[in-house]
């Protein structure tokens, strides 16, 4: 299935958001996630199914002003 992850088209076999985070090797508790522009809390990632064409954002702390 093709999705957009942080603006980049990727192929994934992950069925849900939790599996995607795991597959990509992201820090599970250090990142925040959004699906199609809506925040998905950590506790709901496993039950958040992914579909073709979904846009996923995975964000982490960075420098800011």
């Amino acid at each position, binding site marked *: 299935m093709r999705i957009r992850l*942080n*603006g980049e088209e990727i192929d994934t076999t992950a069925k849900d958001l939790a599996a995607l985070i795991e597959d*990509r*090797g*992201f*820090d599970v508790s*250090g*990142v*925040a*996630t*959004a699906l199609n*522009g*809506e*925040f998905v*809390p*950590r506790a709901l990632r496993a039950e958040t199914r992914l579909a073709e064409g979904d846009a996923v*954002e*995975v*964000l*982490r*702390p*960075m*420098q*800011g*002003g």
Partner: protein
Amino acid sequence: MVDFYGRTFESRLLLGTARYPSPEALGQAVARSGAQIVTVSLRRESAAGAKAGQAFWELVKALGVTILPNTAGCHSAREAVTTARMAREVFGTPWIKLEVIGDDVTLQPDPFALVDATRALVAEGFEVFPYMTEDLVLAEKLVEAGCRVLMPWGAPIGTGRGLNNPYALRLLRRHFPGITLVVDAGIGAPSHAAAAMEMGYDALLLNTAVATAGNPPAMAEAFAEAIRAGRRAHEAGLMEPTDLATASTPTFGAPFSPFAG
């Protein structure tokens, strides 16, 4: 002491964490400024940047300061609200520096989206620090929406131009005596910071002026001193400027004068 949503702080300098020449310079700048609050952002995770990002976050955590996450780079209320929710989960704080950009050249905040996003976030229990223009009516709307802190710009982000509209900034101070007012953005020199504090502003939020200085930790300290001096001057009560000279040396007993006693 300055109050942000019921939490009080000794330091009136809030420091951004971006654009420093090195992580060490950031750490030393925070230490020498005495800042107790720093701003951070959320950005896309990437495999390549993960290690550096993790190192940054470990460094900031080790500083032991209070975190104020921002929504920098958002261009709509919806994006800003989503980013704020994500920040609350990652940083574990209801605080959010709400930034919704309306113009890409000046990075001027969008006042309409700012009010919309503020209403939505306050309803969800957020404590909003709105990055705003110095507009009085906008300020009224934000306070009505639940803001107890307002952060008008001095000048556009990163310009170092100082206080572009001192008249409007004074007006805000006079109009909102009970609201914590912070000048955020556009400050270039400690003298700008002192001027804002002399007006009675509660605090300053700085980043570029410190981070891009020749010696960021020394500049951080210079700003801290200017902010203390400006605050002390405000508390001491500044004289009113006048047009005509008034002799400071007593005229009574002046020599060679037929008019003196």
